[in-house]
């Protein structure tokens, strides 16, 4: 099946007048990756890495300086309406027409897709319920909190029942309950067959949601892949729990301790697992568990950024 999004060597530079000279600043530098049908793809990176610029370029808000990108088979430079009809977009820190009520705004968005009258009203009400905003339907947008605006933004991105969702920082500004609700919604949308491409700097959320992630740093794609694939080389240590072993045992490449009648071995070297298991069993022990302790996305991410900065320095 064709990829939903294909980015090939996309670059974006801005030229600004600074200190009486024109200075060109490269924000995106030859980025390439793809988003596959039906997946949740997390686009991760520190502030100023180029996440929002990438999304703005994809959405036709700014033009790429070079390279190509195709969404649902359409070149983004065409700004094709056929393509836009199949996309839902949530901008970062959304701000909407503050003179409209939440429901009026959704009706307006529906009208832009040619959905009018009763159908638009029905769709708006359904989406308000989905994002937990039914009670705020008649509230003017200027009176909405950041979290409410975020939910309204998510609702407007779904008004056309899109196949592909592009959300820039969808959980920012939400409280923990709101974040969980949006994460559940993302999983539900994935279950319905939609493809989601979202940027985030909240890594635990990304870790629990994403099928694959792309990491962007200083405008360059650093890594792209499935989380287990990215984190496979990042086993910190292996924990082995055994029972029925009397006395202390010596372990090469780790240490052991006795806790509540169980022997817990911590191996810093994963290649020593087989040898340690043999030792434990030779002493009459029963193996209860072998658990590789992997680095989570947050620490992996921090380590990668640190390495990159050290290399640049």
């Amino acid at each position, binding site marked *: 099946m064709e990829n939903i999004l294909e980015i090939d060597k996309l670059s974006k530079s801005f030229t600004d007048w600074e200190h009486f000279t024109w200075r060109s600043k490269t924000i995106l530098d030859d980025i390439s990756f793809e988003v596959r049908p039906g997946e949740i793809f997390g686009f991760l990176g520190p502030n100023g890495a180029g996440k929002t610029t990438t999304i*703005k370029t994809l959405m036709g*808000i700014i*033009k790429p300086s070079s390279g190509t990108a195709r969404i649902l088979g359409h070149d983004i430079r065409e700004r094709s309406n056929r393509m836009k009809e199949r996309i839902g977009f949530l*901008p970062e820190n959304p701000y909407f027409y503050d003179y409209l009520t939440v429901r009026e705004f959704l009706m307006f968005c529906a009208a*832009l897709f040619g959905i009018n009258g009763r159908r638009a009203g029905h769709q708006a009400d359904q989406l308000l319920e989905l994002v937990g905003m039914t009670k705020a339907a008649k509230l003017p947008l200027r009176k909405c909190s950041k979290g409410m605006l975020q939910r309204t933004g998510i609702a*407007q991105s779904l008004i056309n029942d899109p196949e592909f969702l592009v959300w820039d920082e969808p959980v920012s500004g939400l409280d923990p309950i709101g974040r969980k609700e949006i994460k559940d919604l993302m999983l539900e949308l994935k279950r319905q067959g939609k493809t989601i491409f979202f940027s985030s700097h909240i890594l635990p959320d990304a870790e629990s949601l994403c099928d694959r992630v792309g990491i962007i740093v200083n405008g360059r794609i650093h890594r792209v892949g499935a989380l287990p694939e990215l984190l496979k080389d990042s086993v910190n240590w292996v924990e082995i729990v055994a029972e029925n072993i009397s006395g202390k045992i010596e372990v090469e490449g780790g240490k052991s301790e006795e806790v509540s009648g169980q022997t817990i071995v911590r191996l810093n070297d994963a290649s020593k697992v087989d040898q340690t298991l043999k030792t434990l069993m030779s002493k009459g022990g029963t193996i209860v568990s072998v658990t590789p302790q992997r680095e989570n996305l947050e620490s992996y991410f921090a380590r990668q950024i640190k390495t990159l900065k050290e290399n640049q320095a």
Partner: protein
Amino acid sequence: MKRILAIALNTFKETVRDRILYGLIIFVLLVLPGSRLVIPLAVGQEVKIMKDFGFAAITLFGLLISVVVGTTLVFKELDKRTIYVLVAKPVRRWELLLGKYFGLMCTLTVSVLIMSATLAVTILMMGGNLDGLLGYAVLGIYMQFVVITSVAIFFSTLASPALSAAFAFCLFIAGTAADQLRLFAERMPGSFLKMAVNAVSYLIPNLQNCNFRTEAVYGLAVPFSKVGLMMMYCLLYALAMLIMGSLVLERKDLK
């Protein structure tokens, strides 16, 4: 077309819910009837002076709405980043510009109708008569707004609201003296200067074509063909401005 209509309706809502607009209209509603008391009127000339004053008031307040709102409409979309949501939807940038223009023209239509109705009632209260010439004069003023709104929106795609408003006001003033500029060009020394000033006089909108106020005040006949040509000129000028504005917006990075 549906998308342009949706944006136009939204723009109309925006301007209607803007309190500045109400302030302007209330001010005009007070100024027109109130002027009867404050203007020292020559005996027998009351209605003529009221007509003149009324046309000036409609022009001034309509111009304020047209320029002030026209130059901020696109800027606000960019400044508050509401445009991001629009351009990601199946909306062409020229449709956005046209929607904004029609929305503001809707507001101006309603404003001109309210102000003209107030003027008409004031004239009737003063014992004057209403005729077709009054309608032509108001139509001429309205067509000036058709042009100046398109100019304001065009400039707003290029510059800040303050600068765009300054340009639009200057163009309005120059436009009301376009014929004089042509006369001035003929008296210029040197063929290059003559050609340059002449070219400028044709580039700026000739708003003198839209002025039927003297005819309305003194009851002079206006041929319908003149009104028709004036309307066609204004519509073509506005179309040219909107096409140029669309081209600018199309190439613009909406940072």
